[in-house]
């Protein structure tokens, strides 16, 4: 009797254990199902006729202008409004999902989207518009790099995410931006011929606004007496080229690295010797190093916006450039 009793208890225990395992498995299964069905529902949502995904903010603003007011065309910014330059950007699962449902992926090109080959190998069908195509490019480190005979330290550390051979910050020059807008428009016309006429009209209007702004900026900036500037993060060579500014030194070519003490000291001496008029930081990055240079050498830190983050507004580029013009006029006169 006793033995049977014990046996019974054992089997009961065993039974409850398998029950528990089974219950856990059932729960897991239910969870998975809930998750998947959730995804499924999202997919059956009504989709726009033509979906444009841009890699980051600057491209997004261009695309907003080119597709302005066209029914059934939706523009979405993959990296979000606050990511800024795609230095070091890690593709996330939601990005790939986003791209999978896109009709066109608009990229800056010139090495800015270092993850692009991953995208093309995963989604070979996706049509990509490279807005830098055929544009004039500056070799990376060609401008203002004479002081930057580096110890190699920052470079070895950042090897993974340099932009390659050319500087990708093309859109900061208005002329180049116009070229990019035209490339973008052509790409969209090819991919979505139904709306080609509207794309063309929008592009014409936007390019007109841009070139009008460029003329005004030349008028304001050309007569300024002092043209030596120091910038942070290599976003301004194209801009400097357009307005004939002399970038004496770029500190922090990679925005996420800290300048070494020697680099800071050299920059301060350079600022003092070359009569640099102003140090320009960017709103997207912390100013600590710029503040150091400014307070040691007694010149002011100003903010120039390369338009890599900003409001969700199609005039954001125009407004930011207008602001940059005012800043330059104040800083350099």
């Amino acid at each position: 009797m006793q033995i049977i009793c014990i046996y019974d208890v054992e089997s009961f225990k065993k039974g409850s254990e398998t029950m528990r395992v089974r219950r856990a498995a059932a729960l897991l299964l239910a969870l998975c199902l809930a998750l998947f069905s959730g995804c499924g529902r999202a997919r059956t949502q009504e989709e726009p006729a033509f979906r444009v995904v841009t890699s980051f903010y600057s491209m997004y603003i261009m695309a907003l202008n080119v597709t302005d007011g066209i029914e059934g065309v939706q523009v979405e910014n993959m990296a979000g409004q606050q990511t800024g330059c795609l230095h070091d950007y890690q593709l996330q699962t939601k990005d790939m999902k986003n791209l999978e449902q896109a009709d066109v992926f608009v990229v800056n090109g010139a090495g800015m989207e270092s993850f692009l080959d991953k995208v093309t190998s995963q989604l070979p069908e996706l049509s990509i518009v490279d807005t830098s195509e055929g544009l004039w490019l500056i070799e990376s480190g060609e401008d203002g790099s004479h002081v930057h005979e580096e110890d190699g330290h920052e470079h070895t550390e950042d090897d993974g995410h340099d932009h390659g051979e050319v500087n990708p910050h093309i859109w900061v020059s208005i002329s180049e931006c116009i070229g990019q807008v035209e490339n973008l428009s052509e790409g969209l016309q090819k991919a979505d011929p139904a709306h080609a006429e509207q794309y063309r009209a929008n592009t014409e209007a936007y390019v007109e606004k841009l070139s009008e702004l460029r003329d005004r900026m030349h008028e304001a900036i050309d007569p300024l007496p002092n043209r030596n500037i120091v910038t942070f993060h290599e976003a301004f060579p194209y801009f400097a080229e357009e307005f004939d500014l002399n970038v004496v030194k770029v500190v922090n070519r990679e925005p996420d690295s800290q300048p070494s003490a020697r680099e800071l000291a050299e920059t301060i001496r350079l600022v003092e010797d070359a009569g640099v008029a102003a140090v320009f930081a960017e709103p997207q990055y912390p100013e600590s190093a710029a503040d150091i240079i400014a307070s040691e050498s007694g010149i002011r830190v100003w903010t120039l916006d390369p338009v890599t983050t900003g409001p969700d507004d199609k005039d954001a580029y125009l407004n930011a450039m207008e602001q940059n013009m005012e800043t330059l006029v104040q800083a350099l006169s």
Partner: protein
Amino acid sequence: MEFLYSVIDTLLPFEWTEFNFMKNAFVAVLLITPLFGLVGTMIVNNRMSFFSDALGHSALTGIAIGVLMGVDNYLLSMLGFALLFAVGISAVIGSGVSSADTIIGVFSSTGLALGVVLLSASGGFSKYSSYLIGDILTVQPEEIALLGCVLLAVLLVWGLFFNRFLLSSINGDLAASKNIREGALQKIFVILVAVLVTVSIKWVGVLIINSLLVLPAASARNVARSMRSYHAWSVGVSMFSGVAGLILSYYLGTAAGGTIVLVAAVVFAVTFLAGMVSGRRRAA
């Protein structure tokens, strides 16, 4: 501050003290490194080097919480989280469920992962990567005052509790028999380490903060003969590595934090060899 600058100018009229940012960094190093040397001795004694590492990692989550709450100064959110984290670790260890290194490992990786997930949620982790390697050059005069306060506080705690710390780290039973409450004592120490790590993480960096805690004390153990000389060596090595590393980084153009740690590592190698040689001589 002006007075301090002129003192440095007269005492150290070198190229590397020409600019104020280097003077600031120099003063900050003189304040931080003795702290690390001092607290490091007990960390090495109690085999807690893994613990301080975990605290460093938790700072990332602290920053992320600060970012989410939209505060400009992450010090408070980091400090709050680090204290929570430290007390949490020591409570879980105290429960005796699993070995200390396993629990610390669990907490450490959780703190790091949570920080990475929260900070990269917007895809912009690189903005915060300066916290990984630290940046002593951006230290501001107000922050130097803060470091001075922390130094004073740590010295005070050390003066009050050192004997009890020491006894409980050497022999817990003996300490208990003398009516020392080990649990409370451990909490005090853990909080001390949390404050130190949090306050200095911005300039030293998550990845190397632990080396600064461990290396000087480890070097000191190689050569010290008594508790007093152990402390003196540890503080001395720490300050020497800090100052030498800072100066070297200026002339070599390298990252200050990493250079300081490398100097400390070289000192460790030298003291290790010296300790071996003298040990053999005594044996002979």
